[in-house]
């Protein structure tokens, strides 16, 4: 009966968060906690992999809105990959594709971070 679960992977300064199941007002706080923990560790380059996410409601979308400012103001970003058509449609309805990098594969998301690094090396 576990509706929602997550897994985390680290690659250098990059964190990939895999989310699975149903992300609604009931499970959104688990997701928010996981994101906040990553941010508190000072890791601001985050890829969220949606490949196993079946469902998202505005409560799940709100989690992104709630942390994105902090992440970006620290030179990071949240990039999203591997959304099913169904989940993408919800993002699309809300104009998220203009606000976030939403890409097809995890590699593409990672490459976006690498490209940005090359353009603006610290």
């Amino acid at each position: 009966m576990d509706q929602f679960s997550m897994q985390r992977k680290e690659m250098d300064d990059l964190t990939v968060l895999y989310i699975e199941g149903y992300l609604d007002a009931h499970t959104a706080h688990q997701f928010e906690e996981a994101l906040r923990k990553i941010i508190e560790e000072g890791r601001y380059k985050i890829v969220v992999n949606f490949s196993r996410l079946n469902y998202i409601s505005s409560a799940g979308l709100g989690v992104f809105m709630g942390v994105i400012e902090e992440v970006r103001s620290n030179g990071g970003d949240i990039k999203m990959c591997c959304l099913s058509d169904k989940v993408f449609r919800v993002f699309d309805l809300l104009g998220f594709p203009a606000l976030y990098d939403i890409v097809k594969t995890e590699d593409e998301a990672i490459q976006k971070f690498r490209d940005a690094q090359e353009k603006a090396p610290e």
Partner: protein
Amino acid sequence: MPRKTEQFLLVTPSDSKNLVLIRDLVGKIALRAGFPQDYVDKIQLAVDEACTNVIRHAYPRNRRGDITVRIGVDSRKLKVEVIDHGKGFDVQAVLAKDVNHRLNELKRGGLGIYLMRMLMDEVRFDVKPGKETRVEMVKYRDLRETDEQKALQKKLIEKSHTLRR
């Protein structure tokens, strides 16, 4: 496809853990009534949003109320009503906020009612503060995106481009 209206009623405590029960029931009824999967997805999400609002806004923290979901299916449409007996809200004020406001508020939500209006063909609110708040949503079997829905989204997308860093 039923000839007359078939009515279903589900009442659960106003608790987010019950969203999955509500979505599952509504989804099964819609699917069985012959709605295509993408319509079923939209109906489930719209109902989830309306119920999430009840859970988040209708009742004070120390008083848990109920969510009532009434579903009617006939040969033309599916109608869902989401009802609470909580504090209600000023519908006009909320609807009056345009896309501009909505996007500036994205950080803290404000997406639910917008989504409901995008996903369903008709959305009506009937608020009797302190007595009953009712959201009535209709999805027709054979109606694609309305012009109003297209215009709403166009405005939102234009706005979000200007907000993009």
